[in-house]
């Protein structure tokens, strides 16, 4: 199964980066979305895959029933997902503003002043 996770994260990185190399604002953001899904999968897989019980302690017990999944990567990914959402939402609206002020959604129209 690790092989599948490897392929999935590889595909997500590749497609995400490919989209970030495009010229449309929206494509770049979709790319960012794919990329952050890719990193989450990567953290998840790197943390070690076990098809096992959720890290929840059954009522009355003091410890979860082994084998249970490592809760740490889950917590990390949770944080990363939420942060990623905030960032993505903001970036999206920023792209919308850029689109509005440039009248174009082509990033090649964004050039720093002073350039040829």
């Amino acid at each position, binding site marked *: 199964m690790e092989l599948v996770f490897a392929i999935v994260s590889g595909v997500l990185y590749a497609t995400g980066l490919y989209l970030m190399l495009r010229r449309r604002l929206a494509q770049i953001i979709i790319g960012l979305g794919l990329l952050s899904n890719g990193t989450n999968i990567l953290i998840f897989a790197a943390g070690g895959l076990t098809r096992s019980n*959720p890290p*929840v302690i059954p*009522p009355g017990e003091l410890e979860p029933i082994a084998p249970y999944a490592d809760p740490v990567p889950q917590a990390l990914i*949770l944080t990363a997902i*939420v942060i990623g959402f*905030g960032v993505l*939402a903001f970036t999206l*609206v920023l792209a919308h503003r850029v689109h509005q002020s440039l009248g174009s959604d082509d990033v090649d129209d964004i050039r720093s002043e002073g350039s040829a």
Partner: protein
Amino acid sequence: MNSLILQVATRVLMPLLLLFALFMLGRGHNEPGGGFVAGLIVSAAYALQAFAFGVAAARRALLVDPERLLGVGLLVALGSGLLASAQGLPFLTALWWGGLGSPALFDVGVFLVVIGVVLTMTFTLAEA
């Protein structure tokens, strides 16, 4: 989107969603759930309200400005951490009074922030 069905459905769903959210918030410490998901459910309820009756109505139904919830939520979370500091313990040390603990308060802070964030975003976007 001002369809009658949506409006009726919203009237029915609103209280259910809010109750469900409180349920998720309450059980989060022991079962899957928690402040984040609960906050999202509440937001979904009000977003639905906004689609059905318009953003202005949804804002009225929320009673507080979502922007204000940002500060309040942060304050609650921060305060739950500072409670320990007030007793000379490290920041964010959990304090327990029976079954209730400062981590729960912290989760409420998260809950409020999430509502504030999501509704600030969706309301402003819908108004734009």
